[in-house]
């Protein structure tokens, strides 16, 4: 039970955290200037957006639960199961960020998800 619950937290917090960070970065706007000074300015505006902090919090939560899972389960069981977060992330991107996830992209995301699981099982 605690394993299943922790898996759910890891998968959901990872996807939700990255979606929150994506929302923050879209708010910052497309980066076109890559000089060190411009990049520092980008980071400064990013940390002023609430979604960035929501994302960082969720990713910290994910890391915490991941470490807990790894302390009582094998890495070759933990990582393959969390590969599902690619699919959950694509769902979130579609419904929360309004991205258009076409059939081709869905197949691609699913293949990546299965592939990551297999690489870790193998």
């Amino acid at each position: 039970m605690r394993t299943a619950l922790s898996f759910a937290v890891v998968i959901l917090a990872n996807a939700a955290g990255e979606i929150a960070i994506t929302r923050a970065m879209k708010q910052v706007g497309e980066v076109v200037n890559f000089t060190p000074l411009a990049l520092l300015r980008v980071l400064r505006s990013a940390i002023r957006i609430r979604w960035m902090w929501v994302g960082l919090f969720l990713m910290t939560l994910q890391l915490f639960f991941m470490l807990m899972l790894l302390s009582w389960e094998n890495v070759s069981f933990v990582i393959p199961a969390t590969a599902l977060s690619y699919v959950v992330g694509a769902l979130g991107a579609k419904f929360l960020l309004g991205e258009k996830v076409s059939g081709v992209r869905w197949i691609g995301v699913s293949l990546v998800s299965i592939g990551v699981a297999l690489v870790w099982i193998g």
Partner: protein
Amino acid sequence: MISKTHAAKTYIMLVLIVFFAPIGDVLLSKGMKQVGEVPDWSVAALIEIFISAFTNSTIWLGIGSLLVFFVCYLLVLSWADYSYAAPASAMSYVVVPLLGYMLLGEALTSIRWTGIIFIFLGVILVNCTPHRTTRRS
């Protein structure tokens, strides 16, 4: 229509992500092995581990690599879809076992080869879709 410069900067960021994320992980794990196992969970032991971890150059190189990875990921997400960038960065799971196979002669099981092929095909398919499907603000 995605311009050539737009596509070029996306690919440059993805290449940096795919290399720096695993390099950072490997360096951190190598650094922590140099630091040694946590002997017990007493405060004194933990402080000692922290001090030796943060004075270890391999660990700093690892942290630096992961920072490069994270900044590149943030940058690519400022213009590309999350449902494009996340699966595309999974190429790092292909790069690490392949580098191990080619440079260190590490054996790859058939399951792992199948996984590598799946990721590769998946990333190719995702890459056939537009990098950005949302409106620019």
